[in-house]
């Protein structure tokens, strides 16, 4: 994967003369100190991120954390005070007005929290809006808009007006409008936050489904940690204009790194987040007989594998010793073994567990990669984050 979008040392001060604030930040002052001393609001304080091509990159933070400011700097709805934003290696901050418009028309598009549809135009006119601004002929943009509308499942609604649609459908129109320009980068600013919980879940699933085929690079802004976990490949958690923690959903929950981040992870349903690979241990070969090999982990039973690496039988702890000392492997192996794929979520793994019997973990092709014991699964599901257990309160926000 290469990086589509690279943000380097980005600052945003809301002021016409930001220099005093920048000097203070350079001397190590934080957002509150700058505001107390100069009265200027710091939106972004030295933010650097790398968004890989095709990633769903979540920027998560509470209100005032600077997450929306960051998103709006990417297409310069907010003008950054300092720093660089590289889109495929080209610095957006340095573009003149004309080139910036070209980038906005063709390479970065945006989905808004409150949809921002034009109420006086039909759905299809809204969808083709970006193409119209680009100067595309009516027929071409209309057929493109129809295609995109059917992608989001609204092909029947093209000639209705936005006020005739429900919230979820309106946001589908907003999404279609963003997709119509065929931009590589999609900025979604709290795109699902204004929707009802059920519709929001439906839209999240829809976005995941679309992303599998579209493979856009999506910068998704949200204040909802669960949403970030569900959608994101990578999550950046922001507070006071700074990135507090960046990482994959699993790594953030297992190693929050600070009390602030840990506070978000408390309510996380680990059974749906972590997969079998996160709790498995690798098996070591302990015995072999002909084409069959026995592997076992520490303090667990073992599995008999054939020469392709596929599991053919289970060997429990008692018979493991006999196998070690040269017993007949075929006779000891039992065929009622359990196996899960390594990307199965712990919830599904737990459902399969039978007593204390260990499970074999396989890769996508069915080859053995490790062993999971039910006690590890239980421990992982019920774990709490290591660093504190405070909820995000006013104190932790401004600490």
């Amino acid at each position: 994967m290469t990086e589509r979008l690279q943000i380097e040392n980005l600052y945003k001060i809301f002021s016409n003369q930001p220099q005093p604030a920048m000097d203070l930040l350079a001397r190590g002052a934080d957002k509150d100190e700058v505001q107390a001393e100069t009265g200027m609001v710091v939106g972004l304080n030295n933010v650097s991120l790398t968004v890989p091509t095709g990633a769903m990159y979540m920027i998560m933070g509470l209100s005032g954390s600077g997450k929306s400011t960051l998103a709006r700097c990417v297409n310069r709805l907010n003008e950054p005070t300092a720093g660089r934003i590289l889109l495929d290696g080209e610095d957006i901050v340095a573009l003149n007005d004309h080139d910036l418009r070209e980038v906005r028309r063709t390479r970065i598009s945006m989905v808004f929290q409150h949809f921002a549809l034009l109420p006086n135009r039909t759905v299809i006119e809204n969808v083709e809006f970006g193409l119209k601004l680009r100067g595309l002929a009516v027929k071409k943009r209309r057929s493109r808009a129809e295609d995109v509308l059917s992608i989001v499942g609204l092909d029947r609604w093209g000639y209705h007006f936005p006020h005739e649609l429900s919230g979820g459908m309106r946001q589908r129109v907003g999404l279609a409008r963003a997709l119509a320009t065929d931009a590589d980068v999609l900025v979604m600013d709290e795109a699902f936050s204004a929707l009802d919980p059920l519709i929001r879940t439906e839209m999240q699933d829809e976005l995941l489904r679309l992303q599998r085929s579209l493979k856009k690079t999506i910068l998704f802004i949200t204040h909802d940690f669960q949403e970030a976990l569900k959608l994101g490949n990578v999550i950046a958690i922001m507070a006071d204009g700074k990135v507090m923690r960046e990482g994959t959903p699993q790594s953030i929950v297992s190693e929050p790194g600070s009390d602030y981040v840990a506070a978000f992870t408390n309510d996380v349903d680990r059974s749906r987040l972590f997969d079998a690979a996160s709790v498995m241990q690798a098996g070591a070969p302990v015995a072999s007989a002909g084409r069959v090999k026995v592997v076992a982990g520490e303090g667990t039973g073992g599995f008999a594998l054939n020469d392709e690496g596929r599991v053919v039988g289970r060997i429990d702890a008692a018979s493991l010793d006999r196998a070690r000392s040269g017993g007949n492997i075929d006779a000891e192996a039992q065929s009622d073994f359990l196996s899960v794929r390594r990307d199965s979520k712990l919830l599904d793994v737990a459902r399969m567990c039978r007593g204390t019997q260990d499970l074999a973990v396989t890769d996508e092709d069915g080859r053995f990669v490790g062993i999971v014991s039910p006690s590890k699964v239980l421990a992982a599901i019920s774990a709490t984050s290591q660093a504190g257990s405070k909820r995000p309160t006013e104190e932790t926000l401004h600490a």
Partner: protein
Amino acid sequence: MLEADDLAIFPVDVWISDAVQWVALNLRPLFIAIKWPIENLLTFIDGIMHATPFPVMVLVMALLAYVLANRNIAIFTVIVLVLIAAMGVWDPAMTTLALISTAIFFCAVIGLPIGIWSARSDRVWNIVRPVLDVMQTTPTFVYLVPVVMLFGVGTVPGEVAVVIAAAPPLIRFTNLGIRMVDHEIVEAGMAFGANRRQLLWEIQIPMAIPTILGGLNQTVLTAMVMSVVVAMIGAEGLGLIVLQGIGRLDVGRAAIGGIAIVLLAMMLDRITQKMAEPKRASARSRWLAAFNLDRIFSRRDEGEPVATQSGSNA
């Protein structure tokens, strides 16, 4: 004891009359240039209004009301016009209507660009706003003094006064309408790469139209009021009927002038108010849906299930 009159040492009246006299003498070509288009358009429209036969006029006005508003208001328009004719004040009513139509034209030509410009530049608005404040707080009556000094008396100077008095609401509402457009929608325009011209014509003006039409309604009513007041500087029309009635202590004549004015004002108000209602946005879709034409326009095959996955979920 100090009397208030002892303090009367400021000869403001002298200064002003000197200034106005100087302006009237030295800037005469300017005022003739201002008068010229107004005079020509007014003469033209007035000529048409009076040349059109009564039944044709009623029909045209009813049709206009039907297109701009609805059937009920079209019927109301017919009743108003017939009543005015029945009272025998048809000709002066047509003169007043010509005064108002001309005024609306000039108010739009002057007011819309100023309003748009004010909305896009705070600096311009900071200059325009105090001027509008003064114009709108000045009683219509007071306008007549400088107008008479600079333009003379008669119907055309009267029309100048009408235009000056009626333009401010349109400027104000145009500015307000554009500034009130939802910020997120304007940002959406920018995010998709609209330049300033596209932002104005694709987003700001279309969305400001209901408010601008509300301003037009106010302009029409102000023009109506002013077209009556300017009778005092010799403008013709319904105002003159009232003025003559008062002068001769002829209560009946003054009353029919007044009644005709009220009827005409109600008619214009109803028509322009209906225009300003935001319902019209979906008129096209309602018509299409009524005749099932939306299917043809959306180029979809028949026989496809109507409820799509999303349609049934949402």
